[in-house]
C-alpha cells in the first residue's frame, strides 16, 4: 500500500515539475554566454500534459486508430523482441559465467573480450546484424540479437562475481562431501550467486529494452515502439504532443520489464526477509 502511494506521489511530483517549469521557465529557454542552460518551455518543446493525454485519445491520422492503441500495439511488439533478447542474453551470460568460473584460462582469455564487446558502438554493429535478417532469421529476430548483445553483459559479469563469491571453506566443505564441480555449482555456487544475479538481471532487462528500441531504429524494423518514436518525432513541429505519447510508451515498457524481473526475485530470496536474530 505504501509503495503504491509512493509511486503515485512520484508521478504527481514529476507532473508538477513539468507543468511548474512550463509556467515559470522562459519559452525561449535560458541562454547564458551563448550556452543554453535550460530548455525551451514553449508548447512546441514541452506540450502541456493535458495535450499529451488528449493526443493519446485522438486518432493517429484522420480516420485512423486512436494513438494509445497504436502505441500499446507497438509496445507489445517491442516487448516480444525484448523478452526474446533478454532470455537469450541471460542464457548466454549464465553459460559464459559458468565457463569462466570453471576454467581460469577461459576467464583470463574471455573476460577482456566480454568487456570490450560493450565498447563497440551499437550503431556500427546494428547494420551488420540487420544483414542477417531475411536470410538467417526473420527481421525481428535481428533486433532481439542486438538486445541480447547488450543484455548478456551484466549477467555474465554479475554472475561470475556471484559464482566466485562462496568462501574457500564452502568449497572445501563441498569437496569433503565428495561433490564434483556440477553439484558444487548447483548446491553452493548458484544459490550463493543469486544476490548478485538479480541486480544483474535488472540491468539486463533495462539493457534489453534499450537494445530493442535502438535496434529497431538502426535496422529499420517496423511495428515497434522505437520505430514509432522516429516516425512521430518527424511530425514534432506540427504535432509536438504525439512524440511524447510514444516516449511514454517506451517508459512504460521499461517499467514493465523491470517490474517483471523484480517479481522473479521474490520466491528465490525468502531467506533475506527474515532478519530478527535469536540469541540463546
Amino acid at each position, binding site marked *: 500500500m505504501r509503495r503504491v502511494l509512493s509511486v503515485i506521489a512520484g508521478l504527481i511530483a514529476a507532473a508538477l515539475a513539468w507543468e511548474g517549469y512550463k509556467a515559470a521557465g522562459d519559452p525561449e529557454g535560458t541562454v547564458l554566454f551563448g550556452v543554453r542552460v535550460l530548455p525551451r518551455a514553449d508548447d512546441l518543446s514541452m506540450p502541456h500534459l493535458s495535450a499529451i493525454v488528449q493526443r493519446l485519445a485522438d486518432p493517429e491520422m484522420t480516420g485512423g486508430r486512436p494513438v494509445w492503441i497504436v502505441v500499446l500495439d507497438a509496445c507489445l511488439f517491442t516487448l516480444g523482441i525484448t523478452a526474446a533478447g533478454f532470455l537469450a542474453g541471460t542464457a548466454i551470460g549464465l553459460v559464459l559465467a559458468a565457463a569462466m568460473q570453471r576454467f581460469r584460462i577461459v576467464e583470463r582469455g574471455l573476460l577482456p573480450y566480454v568487456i570490450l564487446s560493450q565498447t563497440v558502438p551499437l550503431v556500427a554493429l546494428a547494420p551488420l546484424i540487420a544483414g542477417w535478417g531475411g536470410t538467417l532469421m526473420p527481421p525481428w529476430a535481428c533486433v532481439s540479437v542486438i538486445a541480447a548483445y547488450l543484455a548478456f553483459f551484466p549477467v555474465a559479469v554479475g554472475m561470475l562475481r556471484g559464482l566466485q563469491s562462496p*568462501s574457500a*571453506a*564452502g568449497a*572445501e*566443505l563441498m*569437496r*569433503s*562431501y*565428495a*561433490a564434483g564441480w556440477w*553439484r558444487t555449482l548447483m*548446491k*553452493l555456487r548458484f*544459490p*550463493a550467486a*543469486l544476490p548478485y544475479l538479480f541486480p544483474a538481471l535488472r540491468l539486463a532487462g533495462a539493457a534489453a529494452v534499450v537494445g530493442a528500441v535502438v535496434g529497431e531504429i538502426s535496422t529499420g524494423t517496423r511495428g515497434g515502439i522505437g520505430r514509432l518514436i522516429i516516425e512521430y518525432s518527424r511530425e514534432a513541429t506540427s504535432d509536438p504532443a504525439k512524440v511524447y505519447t510514444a516516449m511514454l510508451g517506451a517508459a512504460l515498457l521499461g517499467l514493465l520489464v523491470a517490474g517483471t524481473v523484480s517479481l522473479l526475485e521474490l520466491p528465490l530470496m525468502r*531467506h533475506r526477509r*527474515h*532478519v*530478527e*536474530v*535469536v*540469541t*540463546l
Partner: protein
Amino acid sequence: MSELASPDVVPVPERGGTASVVVDSVTKVFNRGRPDEVTALSDVHLTVGDGEFVSLIGPSGCGKSTLLRLIADLIEPTTGTVTVAGKPAAQARRDQEYGIAFQQAGLFEWRTVRRNVELPLELRGMSRADRRARAERMLELVGLADFAGHYPGQLSGGMQQRVAIARALAVQPPLLLMDEPFGALDEMTRERLQSELLGICATTGTSAVFVTHSISEAVFLSDRVVVMSARPGRITASIEVRLPSRDEAGRQAPAYFEKITEVRQALRA
C-alpha cells in the same frame, strides 16, 4: 594422578581395534620449486585410535590446519601417506568417512537450519524422509530442535556453530575433524559447546581430531594433546591426558592444571 580415571565416569576409548587415522611420514611443501616455497609439515607421524579424541596445538603457522586438511584430503601430501578408516584418504573422503567443521560455521544462508544439516545426506542420495528424520535427530543432539525452520542469519554465532557440528555429524561418520570450531565464540558458549561435544563423541563413539590454540580447551577435551612447532611444522610432543571427569569438577582437578602446565612447557620447548 592420571590413573584415577574410572571407566563409568569417563568412557575410555577402545584402542584395540583399527586406527581411525594413520599419518605416515608426511611432508607438505607449498609452492614447490618457486621462490615462495614453504615447508608446512616435515616428516609427521600421527596415529589416532578408534574413539580417541586428539587435539593438535601449536603456534600460528605450525601446520596444524594443514595436517587436518591432509587427513580430510582437501590437500594432498607432498610425500608420505594418509590413511583414514583403513583406506587411503581420498577414498575415505569419497566414502564420507569423516565429518568436518571449520572456525566459521559456513552455513548456507539460503537454506534453513534443517536443510543445512541435510546437505551432506542429500549429496549421498538419501531419501527425503530419511534425511529429514536424521537431520532432526542431529539437531536434537545439539539442542536446536526448535530452530529447524530458521535461517542461519537468524541465529547467534554459537547456535550457528552447533548447526555446523550437527551437519558434520549428520552422516554419522566414525571420525570428526574440527578446525578451531569454537575459536570465534565467547568463553561461556565455548565451554558449554565443549561439554556438548564430549557428550556427543562419547555417545556416538566418534573419534576426533581437533585443532585449537587454546591450551585449556585441548587439555579439557582430549585423550591426547599433540604439540606442534613451527617452521617447518613438526610434532614435538604427544601428551596423554586422563582427567578424573570431564565436567566442571574436571576443570578444577589438579590433573587438569598439571596437564595444562605440561602442554605449556612442551609449547615453549
